[in-house]
């Protein structure tokens, strides 16, 4: 099963390496990874997407808690969080196809980031599923290059954060 884990780390040298090294050492695979600043300059947030069993996930969380630079580990539960990705897609676009592609982009709220003689670059932000769908639809036109960021996420503003299910163990 896939899980999204959000890790608050101190913005210090080596913090990212310590987290990713932990995954490698314990044999856990990372599907995607995004790192960036947060509302606090001294804190960065690492969002990891992993495919593992619940038992493994608990083990990963507990191991990460032991890292000195790690401030907080939370799982972003589907339905209780907002998750987004950004993709840039360079699609073959001869003049006669442009209108069709732009209509498609419109449906997905994708933007044209650049336009060339025979190709255009779309920029799309959305849930990973939306991006999958858009990618699917433009693929027949000929995708020349594609890059996606790792996903980032936040718990929903409309839902109060749940107490950790494993509070008794971690406290």
């Amino acid at each position, binding site marked *: 099963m896939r899980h999204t884990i959000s890790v608050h780390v101190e913005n210090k040298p080596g913090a990212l390496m*310590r987290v990713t090294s932990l995954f490698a050492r314990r044999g856990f695979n990372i599907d995607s990874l995004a790192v960036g600043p947060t509302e606090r300059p001294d804190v960065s947030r690492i969002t990891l997407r992993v495919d593992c069993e619940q*038992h493994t996930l608990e*083990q990963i969380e*507990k191991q990460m808690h*032991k890292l*000195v630079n790690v401030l907080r580990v939370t799982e972003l539960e589907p339905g209780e969080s907002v998750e987004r990705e950004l993709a840039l897609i360079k699609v073959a676009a001869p003049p006669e196809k442009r209108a069709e592609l732009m209509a498609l982009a419109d449906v997905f709220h994708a933007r044209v980031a650049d336009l060339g003689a025979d190709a255009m670059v779309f920029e799309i932000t959305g849930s990973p599923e939306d991006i999958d769908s858009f990618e699917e639809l433009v693929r027949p036109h000929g995708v020349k290059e594609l890059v996606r960021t790792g996903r980032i996420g936040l718990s929903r503003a409309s839902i109060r954060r749940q107490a950790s299910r494993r509070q*008794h*163990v971690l406290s």
Partner: protein
Amino acid sequence: MAKMLGSDAVLRALEAEGVDVCFGIPGGAILPIYDAFARGTTVRHVLARHEQGAGHMAEGFARASGKVGVAMATSGPGATNLVTAIADAWMDSTPLVCVTGQVRTHLIGTDAFQECDITGVTIPIVKHSWLVQHVEEIPHVMKAAFHIARTGRCGPVLVDVPRDIQEAAIDFEYPDEVDLPGWKPPRRGHPKQIKEAAKAIAAAEKPVLYVGGGTLNGEATAELRELAELWRIPVVTTLMGKGAFPETHELHFGWPGMHGPKWSNFAMNKSDLLIACGSRFDDRVTGKLSAFAPGATVIHLDIDAAEIGKLRDADIPVVGPLKQVIADVSAELRRLDAAGAPSKTEAWLKQIADWRDEFPLRYSKTGEYLKPQAVVEALQGLTAGRDDVIWTTGVGQHQMWAMQYVRCDRPRTFITSGGLGTMGYGLPAAVGAKAARPDATVVCIDGDGCFQMTCQELATAVLENLPIVVVIVNNGYLGMVQQWQNMFFEDRLSQVHLTHQIPEYSQLAEAYGAAGYTVSSEDELEGVLAEALSLGRTAVVDARVDPREQCFPMIPAGAAALDMIEFQEETTEEAFR
């Protein structure tokens, strides 16, 4: 505040942390710190002959004293030579601060002479590490290093200090507090979980206390004894937990795992309640995990939440400092006892004692050779009842025989490499233990293979006036490997023969300024060992033993604990020879 150099700041920090001895070897990138030693400090520096030796000495010091061990090395090869000791300390949760020199800041990343990214190399085997970037960081980095090494689950940390930072000027002020927002080791076990644990213990008819090294690190041995005696619970101590409970106590029932006696493994595997205290269900203890103690409810007491459910699911986990957790469990049990729910373990205790009578440790006492077990038994006999003996071991057959035949009644008197299984650990660890406990007689029970990995530290023992007694259980083989080849590879011995006589260990000892003895018969054994023990200077006893003696019982790797192979007079003589 005092003006000084970064190098001085490192030593002032060690002094402020109460470090009285550290172990190391100087080199180019750490010269300024060694110059600070020369300019004066209260910290005694023990000069090792190899950085790995310095690392194991610091570990032996930490294990014998309960304090943080400190090792120092230069950049590059000096630092990489420390890696084995760091990995060892990581696996066995030994508190260790390693200070390494690094090339000058502007040279980092240029493949400069003796440059190595040691913080990168050690990331998977340290609790935390720092590459110091500014001289002003030194006081709080050192403070944090000691704090992290000894709080929570103990372990190694590394501080890498570039040479130009050692030479830079600083206004030194040592902080009183650490500022580590991400480091929050558990402070108390949860009261509700402790109540649950006590209830389960009160209800159990066949409980076993499965005691690991965490009980020693957590300074919880008195509390453990109180709990065991209060509820009459049998105690089994792991290799790392040896000494956490008096081994001559009527409630002590041996050591679990691959070479543990049958009665200990029976007790663990047939129990209805396992109370794991600072132990981690290591594969050498459990054998085949799915077949381990199938009928047992598990209470897991540990300072490290990540150990809970890592291998065996815990029915009742309690995460917290063992000293408090075990004491609170006892307090809760007293309450239950007063409410009319007394202990009901007597039949179980008798059952385990019966197993012990029925399946004692045995070995053949016939044949032309001195038996390795007889060597350890003789050492035990000569030191029985003494409270000033510390044992260290290498790794292999001799280590298992030491576990089986040495009796430790006090904490921190059995110092061995458990998790990493580092051959060569014993001798330098003994030197470190002697530095921690100058009053003690420190005996290293070593193998001939192990001895040859770190024997250069005899020079350290002799010249630093840290006398130790090394007893080499010399079977002329990499004995444990030989045993596996014998038992699982149809006795095709491959690259395991070291020979009894090269090197001539007694002469090697003499060359290092130590006393050397050779013994090969049971008649001379006790006399030689007694002399070596009473000599007051470093001595090496080369005990030439049966080259093909195997260590029993044995649970083959991956097998269920109850499928152990036992010593059989005829099998040993015939099939295994």
